[in-house]
């Protein structure tokens, strides 16, 4: 289960992420960023045929919130410096100590129309419920 939804915010962009496991939250975050960058309300995961994934390595963090934000900011960094929009993500490993290793799938048919400056920690709490994990991340735009 991977889901994201935009939540109203006066100035910036808030995205609620849901997932069965932490890796699903990361994937939901990647899709949310791709949707926000290309001005789409929803975006289903997809992989452009014949396009090699980009390796994403994010450093560890003291807690899961830190791991989530650090990873999303790494994704933003890679997207901006390589001019790519990632429409799917495969998390290979993650831990607080070692960080996240993942492969992000760029879609060359998509052009970003919005610059996202950063994922922030504002009011960020990863909560666990019967359906899995949930977190709302505010992005500075």
């Amino acid at each position, binding site marked *: 289960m991977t889901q994201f939804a935009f939540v109203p915010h006066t*100035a910036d962009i808030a995205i609620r992420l849901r997932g069965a496991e932490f890796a699903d939250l990361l994937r939901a975050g990647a899709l949310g960023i791709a949707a926000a*960058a290309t*001005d789409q309300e929803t975006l289903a995961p997809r992989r452009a045929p014949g396009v090699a994934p980009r390796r994403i390595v994010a450093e560890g963090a003291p807690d899961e919130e830190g791991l989530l*934000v650090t990873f999303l*900011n790494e994704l933003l*960094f890679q997207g901006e410096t390589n001019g790519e929009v990632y429409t799917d993500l495969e998390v290979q490993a993650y831990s607080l100590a070692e960080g996240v290793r993942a492969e992000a799938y760029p879609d060359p048919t998509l052009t*970003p129309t919005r610059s996202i400056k950063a994922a922030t920690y504002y009011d960020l709490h990863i909560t666990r419920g019967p359906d899995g994990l949930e977190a709302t991340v505010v992005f500075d735009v």
Partner: protein
Amino acid sequence: MVTRNDLKERARYVYEIPKSFREGMRVSARVYASPELMEQIFSDKSLDQLVNTAMLPGVVEPVIAMPDIHQGYGCPVGGVVATRTADGVISPGVTGYDINCGVRLLATQVEAEAIRERQQTLVDLLFTQIPSGVGGRGPIHLSEGDMNAVLERGAEWAVKRGYGRKEDLARIEEGGVARDARADAVTPRAKQRGRDELGTLGSGNHFVEVQRVERILNPDEAERLGLFPGQLCFMIHSGSRGLGHQTCSDYVNLCRRAMPRHGIRVPDQELACAPFHSAEGQDYYHAMRAATNYAFANRQVLTHAIREAWDQAAVGLVKDRDVRVVYEVGHNVATLFEHEGEQLLVHRKGAARTEAGKPLIIPGSMGTASYLLVGTEKAEREAFGTCAHGAGRVMSRSQAKKQVEGHALREQLEAQGILARTKSYAGLAEEAPFAYKDVDAVIRVVDTTGLARPVARLVPLAVVKG
């Protein structure tokens, strides 16, 4: 949630949230707003965010909300948080991601009427010659040496490279060179993001506007600053681009890791901070100052591009095509400030630094007026040398897009005589004038409370959006 009942009116347009409001507040919070603006302020969590900042170690009485305040992340936009350098903290998140994002006002020597027949040519030249939007690459690829020079010498570096004139520097805060900047405190990743972005506008609410001085409100000051009725001006709104964003991200993470070691707890993790005199605090301070210089240089290179576009558009039509820098002010900065015998670090998140007698620029939303003002001693005394920075958003981006489509908005603006150019019509819709507060209401508050004195009102003729 802060409610109306929690505010105590201290003077006209001045309200206080006492420190007894919430456990952990070390100082009270002050809000500069009129009743009409207060209604809008209560529509989001901006005052709760302000209350959180009143809990930071070493914070000085009071934390302040400017009349354009709105919800941000961690610290509200329009928030002012001063901390003692002796025993207080420095916070990257409170300063913000677009370090030294700011506005610069340029003035031609002619009335707008003189270029009316070529106004479209002018805006098209601005749009094609100024890189804007996502992924825009600038005219300069910075080598490692040049990057370090930009980070330590700011606008002065740009002028030395031919992007402007020496006299421009005198009309920029700090002469366009932030002291205490250290290039080696900026991470290689931040430098990588900034390598090709110098001289680019960016996206979001960044813009270049062509403006006309509609009304002089203080003739003596206007004359001193070289403004006259009908005058054609340009306004730039841009910042430190990806280099600033990455610098903030890097140091928010560093401070989060360092806080337990320094025994610091904060009510929101985006307020992560470190003692000013700690290794982490000093590294961030020097990196933030270096990013401040990048923004100074960026607006200097943009100024050069505007001068070139104006020269091409006006040649053969206007004899005197000189374009002077009127002034420039930064918004997302933390600067040292002497106050009642103590050295403070004043964090301004979406708030403008101001000095008595020096110019101050408050832009409105796209399609509405902007103001040139002068700073006051009262703002130095009561608001740590700070004033409002703009109109302030009141509506979410998604709501704005639901209310107007970008192409329709462009037509509406053109019907009002404002030419608009953008690479993102969705982005244009997000910046619709109705998504912002009334800038005139903001100006009334800063004038009534004595935070600044209006000098001139400018109206837009054309806008290039990122």
